[in-house]
């Protein structure tokens, strides 16, 4: 089997996982058996009534995990779309215009890159009111940096292409050239960045929520994790199996889904990797 095929299989698998998650997120109210905020008897073991039991305040854990899909994916997509758009725009401006704008943007990028991302996010999140909008804002602040850098370096080579010069000779304005000739050529890179960023955000958001910095009302998988972890009998009994494992598996599956799709796309879209792909392994 060639590597290309392995990647195709993994890519389809990733796409499948993501598709399921998106469906679950959209139709959460129809799929979830109960309202995740409604309280039942506390700390129930799994039964036909509550497939994953209930938590310390009596919420149905399965419903909580299903609604958590919504929160986790919503944060991931919001952050990715905004951060990648900002990063792409700044990368285009920096790479194409050069001069002062490039200098300023790239120095800001350098500063952001030297800061350990997760640590600073934790510090900032700790001082902000707990809400998913604040979480999204914090992730966006750090999410655009890598994209800006990658897009800029691609634009640097693209802007010297003869067809860009040719468009200018036909009377195209800078904005026109950016939009028609440069942007379509960086889109493949941007798509991969988008997928990768979404994967990062899922993990980072789970991490922050696990530390208790998430939104206590809109409970993501990380939040469920956090409350499970605070339960004193978590390890002394088998509660962890239905309280902690399901959201954990969801996080792993989502990240794998994004990663698989990201790699498969990257290999498809990057001609440099493609030559390797043709080899038998």
């Amino acid at each position, binding site marked *: 089997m060639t590597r290309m095929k392995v990647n195709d299989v993994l890519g389809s698998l990733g796409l499948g996982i993501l598709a399921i998650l998106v469906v679950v997120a959209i139709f959460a109210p129809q799929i979830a058996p109960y309202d995740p905020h409604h309280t039942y008897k506390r700390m129930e073991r799994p039964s036909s009534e509550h497939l994953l039991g209930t938590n310390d305040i009596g919420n149905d854990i399965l419903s909580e995990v299903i609604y958590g899909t919504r929160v986790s994916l919503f944060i991931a997509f919001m952050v990715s779309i905004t951060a990648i758009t900002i990063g792409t725009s700044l990368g285009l401006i920096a790479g194409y215009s050069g001069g002062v704008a490039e200098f300023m943007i790239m120095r800001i990028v350098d500063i952001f890159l030297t800061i350990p991302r997760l640590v600073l996010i934790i510090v900032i999140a700790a001082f902000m009111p707990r809400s998913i909008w604040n979480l999204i804002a914090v992730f966006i602040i750090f999410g655009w940096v890598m994209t800006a850098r990658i897009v800029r370096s691609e634009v640097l080579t693209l802007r010297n*292409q*003869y*067809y860009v*010069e*040719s*468009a*200018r*000779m*036909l*009377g*195209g*304005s800078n904005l*026109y050239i950016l939009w*028609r*000739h440069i942007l*379509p*050529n960086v889109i493949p890179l941007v798509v991969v960045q988008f997928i990768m960023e979404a994967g990062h955000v899922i993990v980072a958001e789970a991490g922050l929520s696990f530390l208790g910095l998430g939104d206590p009302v809109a409970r993501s998988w990380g939040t469920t994790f956090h409350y499970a972890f605070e339960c004193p009998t978590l390890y002394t009994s088998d509660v962890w199996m239905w309280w902690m494992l399901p959201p954990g598996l969801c996080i792993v599956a989502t990240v794998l889904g994004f990663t698989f799709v990201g790699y498969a796309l990257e290999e498809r879209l990057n001609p440099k990797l493609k030559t390797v792909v043709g080899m038998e392994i």
Partner: protein
Amino acid sequence: MIMRISDLKTNFPTPDGIVRAVDTIDLSIRDTETFGLIGETGCGKTVLGLTIMRLLHPAATMEGEIIYKGKNLLEASEAEMRTIRGREIAIILQNPTTSLNPVMRVGEQIAEAIRLHQGLNKKDAAAKAVEMLDAVRIPSPSQRANEYPHEFSGGMKQRVMIAMGLACNPSFIIADEPTKGLDVTIKAQIVELMKEMTERKAMLLITHDLSVARELCDRIALMYAGELVEYAPLKGIFESPLHPYTRGFLGSLPERGLVPIPGMSPSLIDFPDGCRFHPRCEHATEVCRREHPELVEFNAGHFVRCHHARS
């Protein structure tokens, strides 16, 4: 007279000194003539073309005048230049392989020029693009318009470049080595096509290929180290060349024995004193080393820059 260039100087400041790529050039191009600009690589001929289009690096400085249809292009704003580029003055580039956007259909790239200037809608521009492909004799043009550049051969890509350049019916064309890298039969076809398509237009043909120039040009100028050394009607250049450089260039043609001109063209930063060609000239004398010759009219319409022009 569609374009008059007078006293044109284009300089590039570099860490090693000022590169004088175009140095005091005077020439005028008539309404429907093809004017050949010939010279070795690095003599400044492409820079002259880019100066006319005002597409040089921002650091470059330009002096003199380029009067196009009564308007000095060196004083035109960037917005004015954008309406001139492609619409009035078009460039046909060398390197057709890299001059086409690989992710854009060929028809779209031709339509692009049309839409930028003529405000046609997408459909009409696409139809015009197919028409242009047909005009440059691409077989089954409506189907080809939907293909990508990698599906075209080198000669066909050059045809597409010509179609792009001529799409808006410009009155002045700058063709920069349009036959570079094409094999002989394809080259002949492209030359034939260009001859036909530019019959009623003014064209500045930039090339180092004398055989192409002979086919297309009405007048020819030879450029050496940033300045013109001789210019004359086609016949004058080929039959009674006056400048040793011109004679050397003609001698390097295959049918004339493929004799190379000795030496290298000088750096554009540090010219030799006196005549810029004297270190490579077999007729050079004391005066050539000392005095920089002026461009003088030797016969009617035949200008030369040489102290020993009568020899």
